[in-house]
């Protein structure tokens, strides 16, 4: 008999843990981390785009053009980055 009792108690405890996990999944503990993440993602892509444009300008000697183009491409890349990670957060 005590064995059966233990089994039911174990079952109840397992259920409780499962419920807790399900409940925990709803509120994300790292929401502040996510906020930090978004801000830098935008800036970093713009910086990378500008650097690539600068390097191209240096090598080809076409002073302002590549830096202009790649700056805007970098802005677009940053925005897509932010949208993508925001989508990932919603999942």
């Amino acid at each position, binding site marked *: 008999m005590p064995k059966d009792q233990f089994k039911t108690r174990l079952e109840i405890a397992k259920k409780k843990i499962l419920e807790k996990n399900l409940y925990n999944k709803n509120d994300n503990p*790292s929401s*502040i*981390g996510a906020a*930090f*993440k978004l801000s*830098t*993602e935008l*800036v*970093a*892509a713009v*910086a*990378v*785009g500008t650097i*690539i444009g600068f390097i191209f300008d240096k090598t080809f000697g076409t002073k302002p053009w590549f830096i202009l183009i*790649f700056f805007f*491409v*970098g802005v*677009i*890349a*940053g925005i*897509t*980055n932010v949208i993508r990670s925001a989508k*990932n957060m919603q999942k």
Partner: protein
Amino acid sequence: MATNPMTQFQVYRIGPEIKVGAFDISFTNASLFMVVSSLAILIIFNLGSKKNSLLPNKLQLMSELSYTFVSKMIADTAGSKARPYFAFIFSLFMFVLFCNMFGMIPYTFTVTSHIIVTFVLASFIFISITVIGFIKHGFGYLKLFVPSGVPVVLLPLIVVIEIISYLSRPISLSVRLFANMMAGHTMMKVFGGFVISLGIVGGWLPLSFSVALTGLEILVAFLQAYVFAILTCIYLNDALNLHH
């Protein structure tokens, strides 16, 4: 009293000057705190895993909790395929966490408030994940830059955008950690300076502010280590399981 809030970030030499070629590799305060935090990690986890008693003491509990924390983080974000990289992500997380936390002790030096440290960590992660991706998928890894369902006309632009966003990963990873740590520590120093300059009459308000800031900074120190590790997991996930 240091009036300049940025003097806390100064790197100075401890001991003799060592030079290899044109490089100065002398032992600095930054390297001292890196050694201290790695030693602290080693000692804590060695003592914590020495006796595997059923009823854990505090050290064992701490190391077991951090083990399960990191392993759950990896399982949630990168899946079972990332299991072999557990040791790497665990040591990365612990190193960043301990460096951040050691920086919270007064008169210490925060290693992670220097962009070169965080950038080296991030670029090491970036390079190794790229290599892992190419080993696992061969040239199929380049499919990461070509999302499916894009019209052919837009393809060149999309590929350039994808490449830029891929290259921006190490920069965003390193700038995030460095900027958070530096801004927080500067702010704490500034408010500490206000306490001194306003004296016993008006110094109470900035004092309460800096107490609150200390709490916030401890939170940020943990959170940034967590974000650093979890983003490594996410990038690893991209390299291991190609979704695009």
